[in-house]
């Protein structure tokens, strides 16, 4: 048996085959210049319809109040908070790819970072709908912020819900700034490519007059590094603070110190599944298979098996601690999760998050587009159900059996969930038409031969 020697001192190429910078420009900017295809219009009408369902549901909620939702005592956090945590989690993969993998010098991220960052922004936008509606009076959002008002009152700085406001709004702002900063050179490239005067004006404004000067790149790279350095602890803090919404309370099943790392791992897990699913469609549709390669997708699947296993380990730890704590309520909550009225949701969560991703140990499955797409889909379903299980089972049966209840979402709840998916995919469909889905500058810098040879 012969063992093939692998030279690990040489970095693998990120891009398949031979390509040139001008070819990259042509293929990436092609969707921006041509009229949308029939497939795009079909997809757009589907997501637009979903968005419409969401708009109708939100209008009904605003007109008639939260009584149109399924929430009531004792389950006062239902679909709204489940969806909020789910969407914020989806966003985390984008920052992980764009910032953390940048700091770790993972060059394969260059092809997918732009798209993942866009997903972050859209996902956080979807997420912010839910707590805003949950306040009951979404037209008074200023009460969430500390501003000098006529009541002389301030916000409660000791409340995790207030921390959430700061965490999510900071996350959205910094992600958007990070995204835009990366887009500036690409807008300049598009400005110099386009022949249409209106587009030229728009791209000129957006590019700020970028000239690809290396005196500018010099500062630009430093600023990008600084932003990546700030975005890294930021992304970890966001889901940590979201988990504080639960962990700081005294509800059994919530009041645990494992929540912050467990939530962050789960967020990255679900986010990678969403990025992987979307990228499979994008690379197929826009023929970007040589820029977003199978190797890149395989690496994403490896991240998913890592984070999926962390999540599975956290599930096991929770059970162990519930038993080890000797707390009757804590033990009951976990037995109730697995065997109680919401056991079906619990087992969907376990099979989708812990069992199916283990198939990624097989290289064949890891590199099979249909298989990874289906597993990614399962992971998204499973992670949604994880939040459902955490929130609904703990609230529906906490301390006093006389105060137990059962939660059933209303049609309006389901409508807003569908609407949030509609908003997310509508924004993605619009994004792929107005901005390059792959960072031109970043992908060109990892084309074979793009960097000078080491000079002494």
């Amino acid at each position, binding site marked *: 048996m012969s063992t093939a020697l692998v030279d690990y001192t040489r970095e693998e190429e990120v891009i398949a085959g031979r390509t040139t*910078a*001008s070819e990259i420009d042509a293929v990436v900017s092609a969707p921006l210049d041509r009229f949308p295809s029939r497939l795009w219009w079909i997809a757009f009408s589907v997501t637009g319809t979903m968005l419409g369902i969401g708009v109708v549901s939100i209008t009904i909620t605003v007109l008639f109040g939260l009584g149109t939702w399924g929430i009531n005592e004792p389950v006062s956090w239902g679909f709204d908070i489940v969806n909020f945590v789910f969407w914020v989690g989806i966003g985390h993969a984008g920052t992980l790819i764009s910032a953390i993998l940048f700091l770790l010098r993972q060059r394969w991220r260059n092809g997918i970072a732009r798209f993942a960052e866009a997903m972050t922004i859209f996902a956080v936008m979807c997420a912010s709908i839910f707590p805003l509606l949950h306040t009951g*009076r979404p*037209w*008074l959002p*200023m009460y969430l912020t*500390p501003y000098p*008002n006529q009541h*002389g*009152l*301030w916000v*409660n*700085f*000791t409340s*995790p819900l*207030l*921390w959430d406001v*700061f*965490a999510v709004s*900071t996350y959205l702002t910094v992600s958007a*700034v990070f995204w835009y*900063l990366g887009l500036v*050179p690409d807008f300049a*490239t598009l*400005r*110099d*490519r386009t022949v249409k005067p209106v587009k030229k004006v728009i791209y000129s*404004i957006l590019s*700020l*007059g970028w*000239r*690809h*000067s*290396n005196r*500018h*790149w*010099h*500062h*630009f*790279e*430093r*600023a990008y590094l*600084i*932003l990546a350095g*700030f*975005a890294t*602890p*930021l992304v970890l*803090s966001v889901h940590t*603070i979201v988990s504080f919404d639960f962990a700081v309370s005294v509800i059994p099943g919530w009041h645990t110190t494992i929540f912050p790392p467990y939530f962050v791992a789960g967020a990255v897990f679900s986010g990678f599944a969403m990025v992987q699913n979307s990228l499979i469609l994008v690379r197929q549709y826009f023929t970007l298979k040589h820029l977003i390669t199978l190797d890149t997708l395989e690496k994403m699947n490896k991240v998913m098996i890592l984070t999926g296993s962390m999540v599975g380990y956290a599930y096991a730890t929770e059970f162990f601690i519930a038993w080890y704590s000797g707390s009757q309520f804590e033990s009951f909550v976990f037995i109730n999760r697995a065997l109680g009225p919401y056991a079906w949701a619990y087992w969907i969560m376990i099979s989708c998050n812990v069992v199916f991703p283990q198939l990624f140990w097989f290289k064949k499955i890891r590199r099979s587009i249909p298989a990874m797409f289906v597993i990614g889909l399962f992971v998204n379903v499973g992670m949604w159900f994880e939040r459902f299980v955490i929130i609904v089972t703990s609230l529906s049966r906490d301390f006093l059996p006389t105060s137990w209840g059962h939660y059933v979402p209303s049609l309006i709840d389901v409508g807003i969930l569908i609407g949030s998916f509609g908003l997310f995919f509508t924004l993605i469909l619009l994004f792929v038409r107005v901005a390059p889905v792959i960072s031109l*500058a*970043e992908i*060109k*810098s990892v084309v074979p*031969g*793009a*960097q*000078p*040879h080491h*000079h002494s």
Partner: protein
Amino acid sequence: MGNPLHSITALFASPDALVHAVQETVKAGYTRYDVHSPYPIHGIGHSMRLRTSPLGYFALAFGLLGAFGSVGLMTWITLVDYPLVIGGKPFWSWPAFVPVAFELTVLSASVLTVVTLIVFYLKFPNNSHPLHDTPYMKRVSSDGFGISIQSDDPAFDEASVRAHLARVAGTDIAAVYYDPEMIDHGQKLFDPRFIGLLIGVALVVSGGTYIALNKVAFMEPFNWMMEQGKLKAQAPSTFFADGSGMRTPVPGTVARGFLPYAFAGKPAEAENNLANPLAPTAEVLARGRTQYLTFCSPCHGNFGRGDSRLRGQFPNPPTLLSDKVQNWPDGSIYHVITNGQNIMPSYSGQIGRDDRWAIVHYVRALERAQSAKESDLK
């Protein structure tokens, strides 16, 4: 072309050729040159002898600003402006401030660093640079690697620059001219139009914020929460025949812990039938003093002398130190407080039964204190 020369540009075949050309250009003594490439070239900053970008120091300063600013704001709010006990914790619960302080540190450091980068280091937005729209820019924007040597370089001489660029294997050597009319070298921050724009933006933003916070939030349909299908006390209602939302109790209803006053309008009977149920202990006198100072003193004076604080806006009542009042039994004083007398209204609504008796004790104490006898001194 009559326009002045901005620079001479040249393109290079590869990043390696570009690095070599940059090194030669530096060696040749040119300082006002720039290197253009569609993506940052590793190590070219070293060849160009650029100093490390100082943006890190700005990020540190802006981060500290956010950290101290947010902690300072929270400290001022919770200690000075509106101290409020929350969950039995100290006013200054610093562990709870960590998340907000962290987020605002990151926010101010990230956003302000990028603003500094764009405004002060890149000097953007600037869409009127001579290199814009040149064939050279269109190449380096996509796949070209180029150098431009500017005409304001001290060592600039068109022929020798062209020769230099050709010698280091530059191709597409071209001159870039500019129209002095089109290039605005003025400080754009102080341009009146820019300042006007800023003022306009400030007016629109502050006006919009004012209208949103103070008007829109209280307009239909956002004030629907104010309109509820319930009746409030004192509010009119069309539901009841008398047009009032408030209901009076059924006749004869007696509230818990309350007995109707049996001697209303009958001072003689009150005088004969009522006796003070409280003993004049120090506690009762203190209670009577509080009640007296609250309810009686505005008209009767702090010491019962009839010296009203109302400065003649209301007829002064007689003194409580007169022989008439001194000789009254306790029941008569109680009766006057409960029932009212002349223009003094009944105080039974404001002062509870035991408090009225405590006031009687306190009035007795006032009388005794201000009509001391010789014998008291012994």
